[in-house]
């Protein structure tokens, strides 16, 4: 194994300290540490955070390797400061059996850039009709704890109830993509002022809110854990706030893009802004930021959704939904939450590492930055200013809404169990420094 001495890092934005990493663990923290480490890092001006954990990543393998593979996706994750990602189940074949989730998990292990925790499908083929073998996926090497039909809503109330009940047997959680299907038939963007003017099929906020309202009641009724994926409306926030006030075990995530972008951007008809759930209004963005700040929304999750160029270089109506997000997430959160004074770096660590790891029950991640803990760390430079250039991305796809935009901050280094996966902003070849 290797050792690293990180000098003068601001742990969670605190005073500068040195961190010594040896054999995968944080061995010492202090000032003026002297150690004969393999690698010495000057971290002056850098913030040290626990390695980020994403609850919502689309890695596309198996099936759409032209968009992303486990290798390129986890490289992108490492460049974004992530040490663990949850890989969504909507692959081809669908991750609805022990075999597929084990395959994805092993591909992650082999890649070595980031722990890949597969999410199992709730229903067979994401069809919403029949429960998948949730227990077998949990019992597999992948040890699945999060189940989701993401991309599709489990809209049958009975199936949703049974799933919530069933996963209690192994402390699982159902992560719901809340989208009432009938209310969103033909929907192409947020329903509101802009959709009316553009003549694009509207996706009303109530289509999300109605499902969340139903699901929190179901979860409360059966006493189970519910996680709400990519919350996008002010009304959804109110429902989750109410459910939490009741003491129910409901958690929620928001994407970076829903914290920054609004449906006004759709006026360009540029499919780079086409995403599910859709970009909402400025009032929604405001409510989501407040909810993330006060903890009503637990986590930032990227919903990293890579698509090849041909699926976006077309007219709006036929373009695929989704945007890549792993490599820009922390910068967007800095802009939307930290630079606005809504969240401290401690808060960022909580919403992007501690809480997502707890929701996904990932034991080795989301730990405090302290002696004896596994060295899953990210060093972030908040003062960095640069223009987003998708050509420098590690992800195989380029569908980012931030191309050419100035976003603050940059990941300087990422460590997975004491081994650097990124140094000086560049990927480290596996084995190079081990």
């Amino acid at each position, binding site marked *: 194994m290797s050792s690293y001495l990180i000098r003068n890092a601001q742990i969670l934005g605190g005073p500068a300290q040195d961190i010594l990493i040896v054999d995968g663990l944080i061995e010492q923290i202090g000032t003026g540490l002297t150690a004969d480490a393999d690698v010495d890092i000057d971290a002056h001006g850098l913030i040290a955070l626990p390695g980020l954990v994403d609850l919502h990543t689309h890695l596309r393998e198996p099936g759409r390797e032209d968009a992303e593979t486990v290798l390129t996706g986890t490289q992108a994750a490492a460049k974004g400061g992530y040490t663990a990602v949850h890989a969504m189940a909507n692959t081809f074949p669908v991750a609805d059996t022990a075999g597929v989730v084990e395959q994805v998990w092993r591909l992650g292990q082999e890649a070595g850039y980031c722990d890949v925790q597969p999410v199992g499908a709730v229903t067979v083929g994401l069809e919403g009709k029949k429960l998948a073998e949730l227990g077998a996926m949990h019992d597999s090497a992948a040890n699945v704890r999060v189940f989701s039909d993401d991309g599709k809503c489990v809209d049958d109330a009975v199936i949703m109830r049974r799933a919530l009940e069933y996963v209690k047997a192994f402390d699982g959680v159902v992560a719901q993509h809340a989208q009432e299907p009938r209310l969103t038939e033909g929907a192409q963007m947020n329903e509101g*002022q802009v959709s009316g003017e553009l*003549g*694009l099929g509207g996706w*009303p906020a109530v289509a999300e809110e109605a499902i969340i309202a139903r699901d929190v009641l179901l979860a409360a009724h059966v006493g189970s854990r519910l996680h709400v994926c990519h919350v996008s409306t002010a009304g959804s926030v109110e429902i989750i706030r109410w459910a939490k006030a009741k003491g129910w075990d409901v958690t929620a995530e928001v994407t970076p893009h829903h914290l920054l972008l609004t449906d006004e951007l759709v006026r*360009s008809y540029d499919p780079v802004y086409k995403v599910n759930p859709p970009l909402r209004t400025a009032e929604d963005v405001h409510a989501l930021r407040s909810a993330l700040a006060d903890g009503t929304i637990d986590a930032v999750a990227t919903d990293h959704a890579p698509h090849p160029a*041909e699926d976006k270089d*077309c007219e*709006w*109506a036929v373009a695929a939904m989704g945007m890549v997000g792993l490599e820009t997430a922390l910068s967007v959160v800095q802009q939307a939450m930290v630079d606005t004074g809504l969240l401290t770096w401690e808060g960022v660590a909580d919403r992007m590492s501690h809480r997502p790891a707890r929701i996904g029950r990932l034991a080795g991640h989301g730990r405090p930055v302290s002696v004896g803990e596994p060295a899953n760390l990210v060093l972030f430079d908040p003062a960095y200013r640069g223009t987003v250039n998708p050509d420098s991305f590690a992800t195989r796809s380029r569908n980012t809404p931030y191309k050419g935009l100035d976003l603050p901050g940059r990941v300087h280094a990422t460590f997975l169990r004491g081994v650097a996966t990124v140094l000086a902003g560049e990927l480290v070849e596996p084995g190079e420094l081990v």
Partner: protein
Amino acid sequence: MKRHLVSAADLSRDDALLILDTAEELAQLSGRAVKKLPTLRGRTVVNLFFEDSTRTKTSFEVAEKRLSADVINFAAKGSSVSKGESLKDTALTLQAMGADAVVIRHHASGAPARLAQSDWLHGSVINAGDGTHEHPTQALLDAFTMRRHLNPGLGKDLNGRRITIVGDVLHSRVARSNVLLLNTLGAQVTFVAPPTLLPIGIDNWPCEVSYDLDATLAKSDALMLLRVQRERMNAAFFPTEREYSRRYGMDGLRMARLPEHAIVMHPGPMVRGMEITAEVADSPRCTAVEQVANGVSIRMAVLYLLLGGATLADNHSTNTSEAAK
């Protein structure tokens, strides 16, 4: 004027009046024995229709031929758009063929805007109707028709005229383009429809909204009917044809309550019985047929101004200098 005509919002008041005045001059042509101008000789105009529309397509085609353009009809019907490459690939093909202008009709809102903003194609893009978004040349021909009846003369606008637009506003590209253009020309627009057929957010549009047709009749200088598709009934936008017709259909009784000078307009094709009775459709106050004729003049004017030159007066010099290049 901008290079493209994608939205009625692309037109300033001056642009709009220039188009109307130019159309007025061009309209005189149709009375002549030889209906052709050499203006667009050597220029290639492509009619790219992803959606059937014999009326609009024919209207554009007649306009193009009267201006002596080389016309290519590119029927994209049947080509696969499920993967989305087809618009881009088609555009690249047209670019390779040297299209100076592309007249596009598409079932997807925003397809012309995407074409205009992309680097797929360098010619002018003219929106001939996109999804439920816009149909700017239809709005221009409607305005042209209204001006002729309500405030005739070159340089005149529609200031203070009250226009009532009735029917399926939610799905109507004609309505969206009309509200923008009519505002630019100073008219006051009132939309009348059941609440299910009005878009969310219409309260912020530059118009009035009413659910009650009868209440608006007496104060309308022009009443424009929008086509209501029968399949909307099955999607629960309204209960039955009969109920729609009773509440929002135009019949003789309602026509009698319009001011003397008011006209009844319809973009066609008309659904007789449900939205308009034969009595109204065939009355001299209904301008539906006249609108079709005006459509050719308007489309000539748009093509002429986008491709040919600034005004008819310098038509000749523009043409020769173009030819010399």
